[in-house]
């Protein structure tokens, strides 16, 4: 959590220095969810993160340098400069990147879980979505299918109460997204998404069920987005009272209290963690800044796995040689 927060702080600073062009989406306040839900996953389990889920990438072992390069649009990034922010993945680490069509990864997660089931593999697919995306048809189709086939998948709803500016009250007529689980023949669990211990415990139950052949679970983590929708958004649609109330539930001090209550020397943990976090983030920034910018023609790369068939040269004028790589026309 500390690492993702410091990483994001550094992104914000780079953003202020105009080194980050494009949207910056902060997960500040929601760190316990991404981190807690991935803590007990193995390398073969596949996760489908949201754009705020930096913690998913970090916990699953994606190199921080490649993450920072991704955010700066560099050649060394996960998508090699092709897409922005966290719209990228590293399947070698079990991270499948999402698109801007939120909720669209849930059907894909079902396909991954279907593979595990058909091949009798003991792995789990975990798909994150917001309460905003829960209004989309893809989410319904995915949950319904997962229920029918009792797939080893966990759907994690990060309910941060706002879809951009739209409050939950204008998004749905129920308090808990998890209530909908009943309609799909699966369990719905609700926990505090700002309490790492609660996330770990709740996710643990869902993962056990999936691994034991008990089918899918919908886990709803109640949380709050400390920043705006993106760094451009001052989020004036929220009240001071609400911000103040949620600021007392910051997941990082809360976890420190938890550790303290269990006899850990929190000051020592903090010192060690902070030194390590600073080193990792410094190295990530250095890697990303040193990474070259793509030159242009790379825009044609990584479109196809199988090279497109290049037909034999025409008998007509040489001008009709297909230009490699032959994209469309």
């Amino acid at each position, binding site marked *: 959590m500390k690492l993702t927060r410091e990483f994001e702080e550094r992104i914000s600073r780079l953003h202020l220095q105009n080194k980050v062009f494009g949207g910056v989406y902060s997960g500040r306040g929601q760190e316990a969810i991404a981190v807690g839900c991935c803590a007990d996953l193995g390398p073969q389990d596949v996760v489908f993160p949201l754009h705020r889920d930096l913690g998913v990438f970090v916990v699953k072992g994606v190199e921080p340098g490649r993450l920072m390069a991704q955010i700066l649009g560099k050649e060394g990034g996960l998508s090699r400069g092709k897409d922005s922010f966290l719209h990228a993945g590293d399947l070698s680490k079990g991270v499948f990147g999402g698109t801007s069509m939120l909720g669209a990864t*849930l059907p894909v997660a079902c396909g991954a879980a279907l593979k595990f089931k058909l091949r009798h593999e003991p792995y789990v697919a975990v798909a994150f979505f917001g309460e905003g995306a829960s209004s989309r048809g893809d989410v319904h189709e995915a949950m319904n299918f997962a229920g029918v086939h009792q797939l080893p998948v966990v759907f994690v709803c990060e309910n941060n109460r706002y879809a951009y500016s739209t409050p939950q009250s204008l998004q749905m007529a129920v308090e808990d997204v998890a209530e909908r689980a009943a309609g799909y023949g699966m369990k719905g669990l609700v926990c505090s998404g700002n309490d790492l211990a609660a996330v770990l415990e709740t996710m643990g139950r869902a993962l056990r069920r999936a691994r034991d052949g008990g089918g899918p679970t919908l886990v709803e983590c109640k949380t709050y987005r400390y920043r705006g929708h993106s760094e451009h958004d001052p989020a004036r649609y929220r009240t001071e009272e609400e911000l103040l109330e949620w600021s007392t539930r910051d997941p990082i001090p809360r976890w420190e209290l938890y550790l303290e209550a269990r006899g850990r020397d929190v000051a020592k943990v903090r010192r060690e963690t902070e030194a390590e976090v600073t080193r990792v983030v410094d190295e990530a920034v250095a890697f990303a800044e040193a990474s070259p910018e793509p030159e242009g023609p790379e825009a044609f790369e990584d479109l196809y796995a199988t090279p497109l068939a290049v037909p034999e040269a025409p008998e*007509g004028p040489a001008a009709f040689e297909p230009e490699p790589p032959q994209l469309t026309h």
Partner: protein
Amino acid sequence: MPVATYLQAVNLALKEEMRRDPDVFVMGEDVAVLGGAFKATEGILDEFGPDRIIDTPISEALLVGAGVGAASLGLRPIVEMQFMDFISCGFDQLVNMAATARYRHGGGLRVPLVVRGPTGAGVHGALFHSQDPEAWFTRVPGLKVVAPATARDARGLLKAAIRDDDPVIFLEHKRLYRSVKEALPDEQEPEPLGVARLARGGSDVSIVTYGGTLPLCLAAAERLAAEGVDVEVLDLRTLLPMDFAAIARTVGKTGKLLAVHEDRRTGGLGGEILARVVEDLWDELDAPPRRVTAKDTHTPFAPTLEAFVLPSEDEIADAARGLAAY
């Protein structure tokens, strides 16, 4: 092997590839027990069992999305759209998820997914069972679009699509399912994607077409042969990537181009073919290139309306005759 229909060729290719590769499996609506609305997947459940062919809820986005997930992890899913019109419900998953997955992952994954199903008009299917959706997809990098017109190509190209490591949209023309028959070899290798086929040699006019209009073009060419006009017919077979070298060869030979498709005129592939030929082959042209396509409206139900809207053998013959005389 005895004579097989286009539909039987599809069924054969599916079974042959499923026997060859245990990673190949089928998902779709009514594909398993029923064997598909057109029976394209008949017999697969009996031979391969319920882990290899899965009846799904009516969920096209789920179907395509789950195909992307299973394909990314190494399986080779074949997703059937009961009618290709319904791909509109899975459009986002195809265009934004499947087509960009490899690109967004810096080349670090592959998506060997086939989305196949019946396309096209001419069977009084009305607005939502007659559509030709190819032009929605032929401008999407990351996808491949295939439209066979013969039984042999249906079998060979579907095998190639299944073995291909990228997402392929495979458009089977439903009017050809039972009307096209030919003798197939016992064993047949995949036909390479991206390569057009000369369906008929000729020297006066070049017709470039694909899918459902190929039989109309060949019939029109036959008719014109009796009048002394020698028509060449190029069957594109794969629409993305498109074999422009083959188009350039035939246009270089005849100097006269007629592009024919069942899809609507505006925004259809014919416009792209003509544009590219005019840009690149201007000096080769002996006449202004032309198109014969469906009219710019929906494909209506009543037989009289449908016939009015769709391109006909007469229109194709008239256009080719006009070009020859130019």
